[in-house]
């Protein structure tokens, strides 16, 4: 492995990689993200290579295992270049057919093509898929396109050119100025201007400064940071080095969740190969700039996503937040000036340096330029990872890209911002998504988790679900969060169990406001958001639980009652025999009855009934 000692040499490596790509007429891309790997995509690669070997095609056709394509719903994905044929739900045994029919005979494998959900017609390539049409990929530009394990492929796609440009043609102040002018805002949740953060960190004098990457993606349902690190780890490495140059730091640290083994492996590999190529370490690209990166593992604490807590955890202590100021830019890791940015934020940096601040500002909205990656999940047809320009509406995201609600059900709400965010409803669907609009609607951007709910989701139960999370993850340092989230959870539990009273709804609201105003860090301050936003948008559902003791969505078990329709019941006794609490009575061939005082609402009878005679409500 040769060290790259100058910008010229970097361009040579790029030219060589481009040449190699040109020589291989066809490339088969196989998704190697966590989702597709769990569905055996390793085996698909193996079988494809074996089939190509058999047909003596290995010099003409290349098989590459890439990062996530984003279309996780229909994984494993196989894409063929240059014609962009998009095969979904591929199995290892399909490999031979793909090679024989597609590569040798030049005919698409019809049964593996993606079918449009409305017309049910086969779509010949990814360019015609509605999932991709409205997307614009900056942070995810290389995910699903390059092999993350091969540094030359990243260099081929202009990798490390931004770093080279900074080191040879820009002063650190000019780099900070460019990021500032681009209007890039922190993608971790709060949306703080990145350039401003860099500027503050650059102004403090110290013998050592640190560049930290926050990869402690704790928001349940968000997986963009994991996908970026798995699919394009070098873009984070490069951006951290650029930041190091801009703020005069020589040390970088990535704080990553221990629960992401694949992302850790690919990042370690990227750091090692960057080092071997002289793109990390001493005298990068033959200049006077030196920078290196270390990895620190998290140990499972949501609060460590908060930057002061993260820094304490990196120091080997309990990850408890401390009050700001002082901000990490002044006094961070072991008291040294430290710049902390999230993975997705870094993933935008190299492109801004290469294409300019004006280009970046031309995308998105005035106050939130650029794109945002969202993890679409829940009751939606196309679960996956998407990147859209800021300002795209929720309707476009959920219905055009996401393909609408699963099983033809009715859209009820979309939860954004994870445990810190809120629920948005039908009336918010045409709101252009950006940092400020979401806050104005009582939610927030958060890291970009977007969980779609249908009519079967009970909103007080959803609020309870989030409070279980924040209550458990509260670090316990400040009273409003430690005691407050516990009390909120108790109130919500009473309501979901049918023991709620009207005064509890008032108490929920009042307590939420107090926690918001008094908690120490972002976790506590935003913990009541799921409660407040559901109270606001779904007050009638809370009333149904409290006043009528009913759960309209049929999700709260304690509020359910099961009934047998006497007209449909044949008296087969199957339900009575399966009832664990002997709550069902009836003679053979006569309609049965459920005694609600004995019923424990387990639903066993309804599952067993062959005549659909039992209903719940």
């Amino acid at each position: 492995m040769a060290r790259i000692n100058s910008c010229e040499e970097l361009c040579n490596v790029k030219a060589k990689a481009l040449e190699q790509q040109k020589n291989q007429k066809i490339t088969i891309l196989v998704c190697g993200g966590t989702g597709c790997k769990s569905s055996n995509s390793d085996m698909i690669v193996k079988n494809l290579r074996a089939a190509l070997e058999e047909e003596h095609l290995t010099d003409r056709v290349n098989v590459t295992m890439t990062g996530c394509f984003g279309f996780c719903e229909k994984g494993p994905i196989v894409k063929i270049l240059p014609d962009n044929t998009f095969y979904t739900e591929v199995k290892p045994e399909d490999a031979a057919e793909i090679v024989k029919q597609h590569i040798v005979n030049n005919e698409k494998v019809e049964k593996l093509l993606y079918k449009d959900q409305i017309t049910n017609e086969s779509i010949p390539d990814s360019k015609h898929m509605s999932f991709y049409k409205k997307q614009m990929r900056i942070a995810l530009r290389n995910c699903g396109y390059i092999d993350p394990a091969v540094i030359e492929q990243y260099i081929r796609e202009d990798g490390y050119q931004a770093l080279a440009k900074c080191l040879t043609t820009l002063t650190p102040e000019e780099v900070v100025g460019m990021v500032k002018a681009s209007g890039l805002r922190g993608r971790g949740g709060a949306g703080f201007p990145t350039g401003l953060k860099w500027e503050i960190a650059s102004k403090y004098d110290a013998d050592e400064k640190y560049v930290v990457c926050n990869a402690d993606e704790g928001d349940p349902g968000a997986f963009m940071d994991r996908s970026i690190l798995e699919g394009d780890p070098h873009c984070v490495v490069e951006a951290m080095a650029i930041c190091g140059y801009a703020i005069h730091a020589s040390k970088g640290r990535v704080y990553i969740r221990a629960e992401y083994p694949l992302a850790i492996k690919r990042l370690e590999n990227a750091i090692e190969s960057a080092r071997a190529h002289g793109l990390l370490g001493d005298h990068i690209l033959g200049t006077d700039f030196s920078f290196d990166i270390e990895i620190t593992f998290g140990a499972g604490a949501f609060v460590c996503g908060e930057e002061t807590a993260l820094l304490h955890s990196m120091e080997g202590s309990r990850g408890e937040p401390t009050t700001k100021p002082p901000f990490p830019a002044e006094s961070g890791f072991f008291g040294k000036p430290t710049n902390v940015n999230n993975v997705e934020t870094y993933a935008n940096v190299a492109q801004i340096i290469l294409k300019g601040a004006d280009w970046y500002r031309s995308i998105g909205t005035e106050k939130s330029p650029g794109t945002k990656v969202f993890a679409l999940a829940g009751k939606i047809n196309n679960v996956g990872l998407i990147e859209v320009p800021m300002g795209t509406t929720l309707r476009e995201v959920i219905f055009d890209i996401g393909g609408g609600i699963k099983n033809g059900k009715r859209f009820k709400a979309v939860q954004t911002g994870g445990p810190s965010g809120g629920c948005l409803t039908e009336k918010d669907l045409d709101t252009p998504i950006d940092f400020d609009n979401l806050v104005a609607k009582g939610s927030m951007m958060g890291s970009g988790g977007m969980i779609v709910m249908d009519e079967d989701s009970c909103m007080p139960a959803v609020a309870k679900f989030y409070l279980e999370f924040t209550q458990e993850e509260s670090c316990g340092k400040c009273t409003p969060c430690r005691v407050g989230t516990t009390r909120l959870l108790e109130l919500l539990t009473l309501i979901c169990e049918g023991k709620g009273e009207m005064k509890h709804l008032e108490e929920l609201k009042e307590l939420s406001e107090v926690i918001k105003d008094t908690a120490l860090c972002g976790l506590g301050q935003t913990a009541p958001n799921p409660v407040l936003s559901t109270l606001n948008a779904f007050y009638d559902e809370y009333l149904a639980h409290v006043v009528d003791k009913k759960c309209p969505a049929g999700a709260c078990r304690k509020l359910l009652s099961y009934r047998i329709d006497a007209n449909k019941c044949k008296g087969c006794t199957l339900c009575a025999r399966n009832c664990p609490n002997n709550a069902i009575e009836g003679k053979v061939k006569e309609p049965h009855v459920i005694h609600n005082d004995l019923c424990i609402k387990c639903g066993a009878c309804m599952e067993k009934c062959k005549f659909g005679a039992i209903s719940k409500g």
Partner: protein
Amino acid sequence: MAMDSLSKEKFEELGTYIDSLPSKKGELIRVLHRAQGIFGYLPKEVQFFVARKMDVPTSKVYGVVTFYSYFSMTPKGEHNISVCLGTACYVRGAEPVLEEFKKQLGISCNETTADGKFSLNALRCVGACGLAPVVMIGDKVYGRVTKDMVKDILAEY
């Protein structure tokens, strides 16, 4: 406490690792990750050992171990079952799946079966939301799990 799980060799391995660190400053969590890798869990004997070697109070070690969910003070089963309760899995029905595991194994979350074969825990998001609900046993990921699949999954072990 079974002595074989806390053998002298294991302590020596951990001791050598700690001695090999260029600096002990700020490395407590890294050391605990390694210790849990060696012993499988972090009983108090290990915590005392780490505290002495790292020259920090045992109370600090205990404070860190109990703060992070990744660290466990009880031994895990031979096969550790993790049911994802992240939001995406939750709205797609992870709770009934977890209940079914509890019922079939006769244990609650964070417990181990009497024969030491299975342990059960709930975790928040492994990031494979496209496959929700997700269950992980060891390194193997099971996607789109339903209540009815639980029995067959357990039968594989």
